[in-house]
């Protein structure tokens, strides 16, 4: 055991590899040629993945539940002691595997995708920096190290969204993402500070061991959890801070796959699952999460129905799936949320990479109305995309079925109404995903100017691996209903304290599954009839007359509302402060003192007429007055 323990201390290597990659590709960005940067970056992230896998086995065989590796003291001021330490337990190892595993695949894919871009070296440097930050986030042994990663990934996301910085709209999207994340981050950091004042520590182990003895519903813990939730809402793009995510699609597609689907946006889920003990103490926050999650899941899914940009559809789908994870968190089913996170990382990364492959083939075209008939021309992309679509729709035995079904059944236990709403959202998801699939791959090609072709092997290889994971990923956690042992959930439950214990009766569960499957089948059939049989191509924006569908097409005007309610008034406030308060009140007020002094001087000057007799008279009169004053007083 001792030997294994000493291996765990090597865990600093996991983030060190991508950091090294960042330094190499960043420093030598003017010297590296062709694909060198991409190859270096991919190898280092793969090494990091191997290291994570090694840690996973080391941890499992050591029989320990967790291990803390302290590198050095970061901040120590009085009783505030924040070591730069990593916590290796089942949850963090799971996340590390996802981050490095999916990350490595996406890095490899990017070699092909970014080939020929003149800033490809910067791209890989930033991707490696992102991986490093994300690893800090999931490995940190206290909230502040987590926060370093938390802000770091936000910053990398800013860089990568605005990667093609010549386009002002992309820069705007990047800035929007960063600022919205920062709003959440303020809540998060306040939560950390309150946490410190409450528990006198921000380390996970210290905080959680103290929290176990606290009573449920303590106002302070509720406040802390709400503040942490604000951070999670910003990072994981929930209502009301979700609008940055669809805009974030301005970045290169691998970025969307890595950051805005598989890893960064799930940071909020990870953080809340990590703080499960605290959240169990705050029923109010849990209810807020249920409402937020469900609202986001349905709202984003509805918007996704009418989007025509392939990446925008996937973006809203991501927001929606994150909503499901929040729902699961709110229900106390943390391990289900992390399970869905895992499968979602597989199939959503796959969908994005597939989309990237399609965009690549279509010469940069992203409008699905102009695609079509790609099934024959891009068979690998088609089959992998199909696998991912089936997975996200929740068709058994694909991975999404297991994870989503778990969340749905937990919702049913809590309240059948929740179940119905969540199922509705799932049906909508199924519909827009198949709409996408049919429009892109079926029918005939609608844009004649391009000649689609299958992507190079360096791009299809990650697709294949990810599709295998998407198909079979669900078997990690086969529920007892199908004779499994929920291994994944049990594994995680060593680091997470689940909020619920009861299990559904198997009869009810089978009923639920069968009914949902029938509905899913009907939806797929309906989508097939509209988009393949009738070949109904969505009309251009603004043509539809129906108010409701128009609202959906315009994303319920949320961006416009934010702009009118927040951005514009903020600008006017800035102008008001500068033009009115600063330039009309404060600055003149100071100048006024000077002006007043010189006015007073002008006034007194009148006494100085130059008449000597008057001076003498004034002098004598003054002396007399003075004497009289002394005599009287």
């Amino acid at each position, binding site marked *: 055991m001792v030997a294994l323990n000493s291996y765990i201390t090597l865990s600093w290597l996991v983030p060190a590899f991508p950091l090294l990659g960042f330094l190499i590709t960043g420093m030598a960005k003017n010297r590296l040629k062709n694909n060198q940067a991409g190859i270096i970056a991919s190898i280092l992230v793969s090494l990091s993945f191997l290291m994570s896998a090694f840690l996973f086995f080391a941890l499992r065989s050591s029989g320990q539940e967790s291990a803390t590796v302290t590198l050095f003291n970061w901040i120590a001021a009085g009783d505030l002691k924040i070591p730069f330490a990593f916590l290796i337990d089942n949850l963090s190892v799971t996340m590390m595997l996802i981050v490095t595993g999916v990350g490595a695949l996406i890095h490899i894919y990017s070699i092909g995708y970014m080939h020929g871009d003149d800033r490809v070296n910067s791209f890989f440097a930033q991707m490696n920096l992102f991986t490093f930050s994300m690893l800090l986030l999931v490995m940190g042994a206290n909230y502040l190290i987590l926060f370093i990663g938390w802000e770091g990934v936000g910053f990398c996301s800013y860089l990568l969204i605005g990667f093609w910085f010549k386009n002002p709209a992309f820069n705007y999207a990047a800035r929007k993402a960063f600022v919205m994340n920062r709003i959440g981050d303020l809540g998060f950091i306040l939560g950390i500070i309150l946490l410190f004042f409450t528990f006198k520590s921000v380390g996970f182990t210290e905080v959680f061991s103290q929290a176990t003895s606290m009573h449920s519903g303590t106002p302070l813990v509720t406040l802390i959890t709400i503040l942490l939730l604000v951070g999670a809402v910003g990072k994981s793009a929930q209502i009301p801070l979700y609008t940055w995510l669809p805009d974030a699609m301005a970045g290169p597609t691998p970025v969307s796959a890595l950051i805005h689907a598989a890893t960064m946006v799930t940071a909020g889920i990870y953080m809340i699952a990590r703080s499960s003990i605290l959240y169990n103490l705050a029923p109010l926050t849990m209810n807020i999460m249920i409402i937020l999650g469900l609202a986001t899941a349905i709202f984003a899914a509805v918007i996704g129905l009418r989007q025509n940009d392939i990446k925008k559809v996937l973006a809203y789908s991501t927001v929606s799936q994150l909503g499901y994870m929040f729902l699961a968190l709110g229900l106390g089913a943390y391990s289900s949320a992390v399970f869905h996170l895992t499968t979602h990382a597989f199939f959503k990364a796959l969908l994005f990479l597939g989309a990237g492959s399609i965009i690549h083939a279509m010469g940069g075209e992203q409008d699905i109305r102009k695609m079509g008939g790609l099934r024959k021309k891009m068979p690998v992309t088609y089959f992998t995309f199909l696998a991912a679509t089936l997975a996200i729709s929740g068709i058994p035995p694909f991975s999404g079925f297991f994870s989503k079904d778990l969340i749905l059944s937990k919702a049913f236990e809590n309240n059948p109404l929740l179940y119905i709403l969540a199922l509705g959202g799932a049906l909508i998801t199924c519909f827009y995903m198949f709409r996408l699939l049919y429009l892109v791959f079926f029918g005939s090609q609608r844009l004649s100017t391009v000649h689609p072709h299958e992507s190079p092997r360096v791009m299809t290889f990650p697709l294949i691996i990810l599709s295998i994971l998407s198909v079979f990923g669900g078997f990690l956690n086969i529920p007892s209903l199908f004779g499994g042992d929920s291994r994944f959930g049990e594994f995680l439950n060593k680091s997470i304290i689940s909020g619920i214990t009861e299990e559904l009766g198997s009869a009810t569960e089978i009923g639920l599954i069968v009914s949902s499957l029938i509905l899913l089948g009907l939806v797929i059939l309906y989508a097939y009839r509209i988009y393949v049989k009738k070949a109904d191509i969505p009309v251009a924006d603004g043509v539809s007359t129906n108010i409701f569908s128009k609202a959906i097409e315009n994303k319920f005007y949320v961006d416009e509302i934010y702009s009118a309610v927040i951005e514009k008034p903020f600008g006017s406030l800035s102008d008001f402060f500068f033009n009115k308060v600063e330039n009309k009140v404060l600055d003149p007020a100071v100048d006024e003192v000077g002006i007043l002094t010189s006015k007073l001087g002008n006034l007194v000057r009148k006494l100085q007429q130059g008449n*000597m007799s008057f001076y*003498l008279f004034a002098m004598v009169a003054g002396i007399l007055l003075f004497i009289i004053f002394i005599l009287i007083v």
Partner: protein
Amino acid sequence: MKEISSAIQLIPLENYIVLSIALFSIGMMGVLFRRNTIAILMCLELMFNSVNLLLTAFSAYHSDPSGQVFVFFIMIVAAAEIAVGLSIVVMMKRNVDSVDINLLNRLKW
């Protein structure tokens, strides 16, 4: 020195005070109401000397010589001042051919 003091003390102090006030007032009136600059300077001297007189008287009555020392200082300062003052008057006469104080009305700002 003793004799002088006692000689001074022969006359009651009130008389000195009244005389000084009278001289001072005459001098002040002269300064205020005369227009001839030389007359004004002379009136100034009168005021100085009224003060000197008073200082001497008090000094003798208190048998404290420092008052008389001050008188010497004042006399020296007065001499210096009158030298400057008279030279200004001479310059004035040369430049504007008059010694009327009201012609010096550009001494402002």
